[in-house]
């Protein structure tokens, strides 16, 4: 389009205008591309974790490791469900190099069973089966996400991996469990996130990686020995 105009018009001003327009369009596309994937639009705000990781947090992988990946997640969020296998694979492949921390960030306004799911995981944690419930919730997300008997299904699941069902039911209704979920949520809000999943690497918010390899390299880049070996991406 630019060249056609040039031939017909030939004015220097015209060239300048169309070059400017062309540059503006390209720049906009680039800007939108870098804005995308910023993890729920929380990019403009704070990028640091507000509540430091403490003993009350759920951890897996090498809990002694210097590298720490933290996720604010919502069990009913499809994006968290999509990242779940990626995170699991990271733990399997690099589990000795980093610790994984999971915090609850149920988006109650848009996901009706998210809070009940978070409470189910925390209640299972009371009987030392937090990660079992965590896995079950993500693996079976479609099964319970929009159902009206989600709580029932959670209890069935709890029983299926050997939890005392009555105790589980009692725990998940306990004020203490609701308070834990709320504490996680408030910490996320304080950090400035408004969406899930939101990942923090060593306390700093990262853009949601587009692929497993990107994610893996990001973590490796924080591992001291890996950087020394030159495997930094």
């Amino acid at each position, binding site marked *: *389009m630019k060249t056609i*105009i040039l031939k017909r*018009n030939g004015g220097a001003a*015209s060239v300048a*205008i*169309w070059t400017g*327009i062309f540059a503006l*369009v390209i720049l*906009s*596309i680039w*800007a*939108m*591309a870098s*804005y*995308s*994937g910023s*993890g*729920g*639009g929380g990019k403009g705000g704070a990028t640091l974790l507000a509540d430091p990781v403490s003993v009350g947090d759920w951890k897996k992988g090498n809990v002694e490791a210097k590298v720490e990946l933290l996720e604010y997640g*919502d069990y009913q*969020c*499809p*994006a*968290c*469900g*999509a*990242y779940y296998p990626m995170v699991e694979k990271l733990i399997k492949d690099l589990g000795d190099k980093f610790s994984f921390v999971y915090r609850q960030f149920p*988006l109650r*306004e*848009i*996901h009706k069973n998210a809070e009940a799911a978070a409470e189910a995981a925390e209640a299972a944690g009371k009987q030392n089966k937090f990660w079992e419930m965590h896995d079950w919730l993500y693996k079976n997300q479609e099964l319970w996400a929009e159902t009206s008997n989600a709580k029932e299904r959670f209890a069935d699941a709890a029983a299926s991996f050997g939890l005392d069902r009555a105790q589980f039911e009692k725990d998940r209704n306990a004020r203490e469990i609701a308070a834990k979920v709320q504490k996680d949520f408030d910490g996320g809000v304080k950090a400035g996130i*408004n*969406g*899930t*999943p*939101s990942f923090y690497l060593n306390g700093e918010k990262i853009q*949601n990686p*587009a692929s497993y390899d990107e994610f893996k390299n990001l973590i490796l880049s924080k591992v001291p020995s890996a950087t020394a070996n030159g495997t930094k991406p």
Partner: protein
Amino acid sequence: MALNHKRLAITFLIISFLGFLDATYLAVEHYRGVTPPCTIVAGCEKVTTSRYATIFGVPVALLGSIYYLTIFLLSVLVLERKKERFLFWVGYLSGIGFLAALWFLFLQVLVIRAICLYCVFSALTSTTLFVLGILVLKSKRDSGLDGPSTTNRILAP
């Protein structure tokens, strides 16, 4: 060119640019291949991953992006080449955009039952463009710029 038309073209230019940014963002999200994050404020994951988000494999966000870009470039042509004819093209095009916006709003509210703020913003820009389009076509009819025609009467009653 009538001052009125120049102002309209500038408004078209600004609104279509905003619409272009909005639609391009959603199109990029689509092609990034990552499930869009769930957010309280935007709530787009359900909408943009629904089967209505693509038409024959083409994301509607991309079509929207092309639509806004077309209006944007036509507006530049109007201002730069002083060709008012393009302004009328924009007027007709805005009608198509408005119909598309109505359809997508219907889908969100009644079929998908989830609202995506980026899509609502797009509906706002399309509607604004349509109102401007009516003004353009009305002024065309009033001034009888290129003589009476049937399309005139249909699109700008």
